[in-house]
């Protein structure tokens, strides 16, 4: 039996063998990849790295630490401002891709995964806001419950259950977001950066 027919061989064929090393870690790009708009994609990733780093620090110390420690409050502030930067960069990146019609050339999946990352970020951010364990989180949780309850989601995801929200925020949701972002980046590398729109063309 050839290795191509084994499960491992099939997975290798569907993943690693699809890529040239230069595609994954390029040291050259098409000449048209020269615009400030490209900064926002990598800036979004950088803000995500800051988010994960500050979030992990908060996770190590526990959900109430930042209320009583100056260091904790500062780390929480870094987390908050990383979130704000992350969304600003991501929204500019998204608008940029819209005006570039970046779905051209069989890049639909790249667009779809980018949008999924945007919505996964909103849900992850929302769970972050309701686990602040302060007045803001109390108000957001009690107001948001009505939307989730009306949709039937509240029976399974209870915004008032802080423990559930904490676990979602630090485990399932970042894992899901991380996987979507990774998939998105791999697609960008696999398909390459979309070329400029031709005059009057596609």
């Amino acid at each position, binding site marked *: 039996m050839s290795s191509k027919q084994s499960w491992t061989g099939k997975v290798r064929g569907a993943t690693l063998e699809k890529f040239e090393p230069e595609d994954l870690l390029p040291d050259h790009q098409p000449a048209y990849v020269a615009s400030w708009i490209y900064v926002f994609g990598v*800036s979004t990733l950088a803000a995500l*790295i800051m988010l994960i780093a500050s979030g992990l620090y908060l996770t190590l110390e526990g959900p109430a630490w930042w209320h009583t420690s100056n260091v904790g409050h500062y780390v929480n502030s870094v987390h908050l401002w990383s979130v704000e930067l992350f*969304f600003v960069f991501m929204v500019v990146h998204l608008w940029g891709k819209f005006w570039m019609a970046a779905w051209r050339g069989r890049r639909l999946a790249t667009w779809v995964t980018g949008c999924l990352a945007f919505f996964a970020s909103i849900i992850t951010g*929302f769970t972050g806001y309701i686990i602040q364990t302060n*007045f803001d989180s109390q108000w957001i949780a009690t107001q948001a419950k009505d939307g989730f309850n009306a*949709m039937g989601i509240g*029976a399974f995801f209870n915004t008032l259950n802080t423990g559930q929200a904490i676990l979602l925020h630090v485990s399932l949701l970042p894992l899901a977001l991380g996987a979507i972002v990774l998939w998105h980046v791999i697609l960008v590398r696999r398909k390459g950066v979309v*070329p400029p729109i031709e005059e009057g*063309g596609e």
Partner: protein
Amino acid sequence: MTRKLSTVDPSKKWSGPVREYDLIKELVIAVVVVGLLALSLAALFSSPDQKALTMQSWSKEAPADFVQTAAGELAGTTTSASYGPPYNHNGDNQNIGPVNLAKLAGVRIPIVPADSFVIEPLKLQTSDSTQAAIATWSAASETQRSDWANAYADALTKDGKALTLADPTGKFGPTPTLVTALYGMATSGALDGALTTSDSTLPTNFTKPLLFLADSGTYFPDKAGAEHLGGDQWGVMNETGSWPGQSWLWLYSFWYQIEPFKSSGNADILVMSLMGLLSLGLILLPLLPIIPRIPYWIPVHRLIWRNWYRKSAEKV
């Protein structure tokens, strides 16, 4: 004359001119710059942390509102008492057309406000009068309980300031004793513990105290209003103080400001459904009619790739 890039097929690997690029260096520089920006913003502007409200703070800062709400829980007139799924069967929750998703999901977080917020916590009290009042309440019919509690809740609301009222004719039954005892528990801080530890001695679930607090007539909403967090203040996307909040929820918040959502009893399910549809539209935007053509009609791409277009024109 601008060169027509008619030979460029966006689905094919690029075979035209390239430039030097260093992916790892770019990522490292981005992390350093964005990291410094986040660290600086945090140092300069910090982050908000307005202390959480408690049953104790509520009962001390707005005692009349607390006792009126407690009486309302016994009377079954609060929002929680008539909410419906997922908490109880006392209401229908919201519909979209003939569909009621909350009912389909069912009652999975059972809350009976009179019992969950008032009677069960009071069972932890040792006072003979409180236990006698609980026994009288428990032995009475539902109609009798409702009559007692509604009469008392109405009287408290009418008075507006009273924390307890005399009952010479006995029309309030054990309600004043129950409400006064709960008020005492709240001011001592014992009610906070009782509501959070009823299901587990190590509290992680704040459903009961938050639902009770959300039934508050003035205390909770007034605090939120003062921080511009109210629904009619675009509160969904705001944060306490002057800090930026979840501004990316602006469109979600927008629908609540306009008709027909603003005054609809089904506003939440309508807005959530609409946002779900719009989100799906964004995900599948390239497959929609008209919208994917907009970047061709409004040539922002000429600005984005201006260097490329200029160089292409120079070569021709």
